[in-house]
């Protein structure tokens, strides 16, 4: 209980610090939030354009697709706020030789890294994602108090978990190989595929994005399940790959830490 409250206090303090430092560059903070919203609302605008000139994406009406887009924004927003900021920090501090400070404190390295690298403008993105989802749900007449919504949340949480896992994986790569920015670059290009429903892709691509790199949990599966419900099989087959990924990434991270500290930093 003591440890938990300590962790919570550190977390709150670091969010406070993050917000304070940013507000010092006042105009830039406002503008960064605006930039995030500009980026996040371009997607829905494109959706409107597509649906006003065509019959849209097979299997998805306009509001269903907006629900899908809101989910992507929400999950990737989480990733940008909490997960990828860590990876950027790792790459930066390893390059500058400053990473050692994370190993020296009497705190779990990963957790310390996590608290130190929260990206405050990402909250604007998470907020935007929620807003779009809520809007779409209202238009579709979906209730927040349904079982499907509960399943939706479970999937979204696994989406969060996957974001953490993949970012930790790439961070580990920063120690084990050189030029991990290239890997990150490649991953982001792949993750763009998750911005459209997986049913538009060929079977091979859909398989890849469900089981190999389970980006499906970021958007496609939560949205589909909220709209149509899920069988236990579907749930298991989409969430299990995420668990595997989490396990692999933690293992790889520990390996990377061992290598880094034994090599004398």
């Amino acid at each position, binding site marked *: 209980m003591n440890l938990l409250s300590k962790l919570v206090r550190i977390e709150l303090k670091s969010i406070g610090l993050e917000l304070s430092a940013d507000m010092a*560059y006042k*105009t*830039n*903070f*406002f*503008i*960064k*939030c*605006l*930039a*995030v919203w*500009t*980026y996040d609302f*371009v997607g829905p*605008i*494109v959706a409107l*354009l*597509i649906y*006003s*000139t*065509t*019959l*849209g*994406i*097979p299997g998805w009406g306009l509001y269903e697709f907006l629900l899908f887009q809101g989910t992507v924004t929400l999950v990737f927003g989480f990733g940008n706020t909490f997960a990828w900021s860590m990876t950027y920090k790792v790459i930066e501090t390893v390059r500058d030789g400053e990473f050692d400070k994370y190993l020296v404190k009497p705190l779990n390295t990963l957790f310390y890294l996590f608290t130190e690298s929260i990206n405050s*403008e990402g909250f604007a993105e998470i907020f935007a994602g929620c807003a779009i989802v809520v809007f779409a749900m209202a238009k579709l007449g979906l209730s927040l108090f349904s079982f499907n919504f509960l399943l939706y949340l479970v999937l979204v949480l696994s989406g969060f978990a996957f974001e953490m896992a993949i970012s930790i994986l790439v961070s580990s790569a920063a120690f084990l190989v050189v*030029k991990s*920015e*290239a890997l990150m*670059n*490649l991953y982001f*290009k*792949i993750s*763009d*595929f998750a911005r*459209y429903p997986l*049913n*538009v*892709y*060929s079977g091979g*691509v859909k398989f890849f994005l469900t089981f190999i790199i389970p980006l499906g949990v970021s958007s496609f599966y939560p949205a589909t399940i909220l709209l149509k419900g899920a069988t236990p099989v579907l749930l298991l087959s989409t969430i299990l790959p995420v668990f595997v990924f989490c396990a692999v990434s933690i293992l790889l991270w520990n390996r990377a830490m061992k290598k880094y500290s034994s090599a004398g930093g």
Partner: protein
Amino acid sequence: MIAKILRNYWATGKMGLKVGLQYRFSFLVTMLTTPLALFMYFFLWKSIYSVTGQEIIQGFTFSTLIEYYVLSMIVGFFTWCDVDKWISQDVRHGRIISAFVAPMSILSQNLAFEVGINALAIILEMIPVFLIGFVLFGLHAAPLFNFIMFFVSVALAFLLAFFISFNVGLSSFWLKKIDGLRRIRRTLIYFLSGGLIPLSFFPGWVQDVSHFLPFEYIRSVPIKIYLADYSALAILGQIGIQVAWIVLLYLLSIAIYKRAFKQFTGAGV
């Protein structure tokens, strides 16, 4: 006099090229990974076209639309401009003061450098995408006149993008940190120039307004030149408008620069 200016540009451009060479690995990675997006658009629009059942949507057949995205990617390489980042870094680290003490205008220094640093990137990234476009995505070879005018238009698009970025970069004299502004610039230009979806999908009134904004001349116009959406005369007209926008933004940059300099000396950076 002009020879002197050209020599300065050449020497500065060479520096940019040398710095660009240092980043050749990241260009390689970009070159290999960027074409992935083409597959994404391919699948997306294939499914949309199959449901809608029409051959032509907003003036595009499916194959022409895919060609559009290939060309959009190529034009995108030319118009990628980070000069706003360089300027804001120079201002924040104090290097800008050395730039002021050099006998070459800040504009010239940055323009020449940017051309140099992009030259290599453009060649490395553009050629593979052209090849992939021809081989995999059905890009057709444009008639010679259109092909040449395409490159003229793209070069002008680069200058246009440069001046917009340069003007945004100058704002760092007031704002110090401009990464938010830069992101808005990139998103807006990408969206309003037709990068995510061709401009013909936008409502009519938006397209009309767009003719009076510089954005469509950064991407959409060069692409349409390639796809022969304009008559030969109209092509020359479009190029003329591009030149007009460049002149306008150039004059704007001079005005902003004068005030930026005053701001800089006033705030004691």
